[in-house]
């Protein structure tokens, strides 16, 4: 499988370099802002400081989303594979459909794991700078966000194997995100209103309290099981789509 992984790496490398650059810029700016809040001029403006202190815990988790978003090129190359004839070429060789799909899922998994490690490192640095030693919470939040990103990535790839054009994938994804948004936004608004200015807004704080209280101890487990289910179902559906020969 390493040759196929290498093929995808060479094709998407440019996008990952861009992803790293965006992340590096974001990390640098946010670290500078944090340092400025703690030691610089911003600290002298008490009103701004209060607002930024409250917003900052959320901002630091944004990094978790940036890398996978900027490096979503792997999804794009499934269509590129179809258009260049690469998938057809593979099907004229002894490479099985399962192997083709497994390689794509594997590559996406690796990229999200790399992003996860980078995100984790970044958040740890921010915490050290802030003097915040709540690493357990930190690890959990980053893991949950990256887990959700991974599920989204597998879902996206499955759609790309099933559907024939990018527009259909985009429309379907907007639909799913829209439904999730409609379900979550009222709770988030309500919660934000109730919270007012809080010391820390975590992923859990953005969910309805009752629901979150019930699922909080199992959040990591739920995400882990979710990843497995989406990966297995996505893999099987994608292989089926690949095996569905031209009509």
């Amino acid at each position, binding site marked *: 499988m390493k040759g196929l992984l*290498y093929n995808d790496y060479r094709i998407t490398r440019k996008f990952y370099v861009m992803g790293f650059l965006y992340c590096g810029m974001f990390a640098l700016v946010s670290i500078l802002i944090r340092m400025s809040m703690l030691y610089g001029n911003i600290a002298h403006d008490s009103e701004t400081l209060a607002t930024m202190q409250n917003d900052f815990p959320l901002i630091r988790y944004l990094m978790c989303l940036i890398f996978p978003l900027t490096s979503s090129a792997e999804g794009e*190359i499934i269509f590129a594979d179809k258009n260049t004839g690469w998938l057809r*070429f*593979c099907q004229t060789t*002894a490479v099985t459909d399962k192997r083709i799909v497994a390689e794509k899922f594997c590559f996406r998994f690796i990229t999200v794991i790399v992003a996860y490690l980078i995100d984790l490192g970044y958040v740890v640095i921010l915490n050290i700078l802030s003097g915040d030693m709540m690493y357990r919470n930190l690890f959990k939040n980053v893991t949950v966000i990256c887990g959700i990103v991974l599920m989204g990535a597998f879902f996206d790839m499955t759609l790309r194997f099933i559907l024939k054009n990018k527009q259909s994938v985009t429309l379907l994804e907007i639909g799913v995100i829209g439904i999730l948004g409609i379900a979550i936004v009222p709770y988030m608004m309500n919660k934000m209103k109730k919270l007012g200015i809080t010391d820390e807004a975590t992923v859990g704080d953005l969910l309805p309290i009752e629901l979150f209280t019930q699922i909080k101890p199992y959040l990591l487990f739920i995400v882990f099981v979710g990843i497995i289910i989406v990966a297995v179902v996505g893999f099987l559906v994608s292989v089926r789509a690949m095996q569905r020969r*031209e009509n």
Partner: protein
Amino acid sequence: MSNYQNAIEINGLTRKYDGFTLDNVSFSVPKGSIMGFIGQNGAGKTTTIKLLLNLITKDSGTIKMLGMDNSQHEYKIKEQISAVFDELPFHEVLNARQLSVVMADIFKEWDKKTYFDYLDRFSLPQKKKFREFSKGMKMKLQIAVALSHKAKLLIMDEATTGLDPVVRNEILDIFLEYLQDEENSILLSSHITTDLEKIADNVTFIDKGRILLSGNKDETVENHGVIKCRKAEYNDIDPDDIISARLTDFGAEVMINDKKSCQRKYSGLIIDNTTLEEIMLFYVHRQKKEWT
């Protein structure tokens, strides 16, 4: 030494589409030979090749490749064959050196040395991205890949179309060299009949999804002929002997498929030798019988 006689054996192959049917196609490619697969665009060549490679499903019929059923032993067969299409199937951001790493994973028998030897021979740069390659270079690259994993059968779909004569000749020479090993065979689909005339041992002619002719190329060309005659003489020719006739202001050109018998039967007429291109042309008009 393999124990099959035909590299490809197709029997009763049928595949129906809306508006097109590949109808009961049967032919075989003897081991160690080049089969020219000719026909107009849309005649069914690519459909047949896709069925050979299991890229589409057949409605009925059997396909044996390298002595094995192509459905039951799909991956075993594909390990030993190479397919070359008219377009480069590799991503254009790669270069030839990087492609070798990828191919080593795809083909168990990948021979890096042979591949790089072919690159040198074709004067293909190793570090230049494929997007900067010309059409001829892309085709040579595909052929270098196809010949670098000890494939016993090459399936080429319009591989020489759109190439200049120099590159085409170079590629045809490589095919002849490849056939020095009698275990190797080639199915070469093309509508450029001059290429096939140069190198093919056998030809199969397909039109509107049906096989019209299949056999030894030299015999096929020898058995056919063109009678050039006046219209009055044309009217005396038995319609059963005529494939089709091109009528001109000055007379008629009549394609016949049994030259020896016609020479005896129409001793007063001159029967010219013909070419694969002419055979293809006259067979395409066989239903109208007369055309201009």
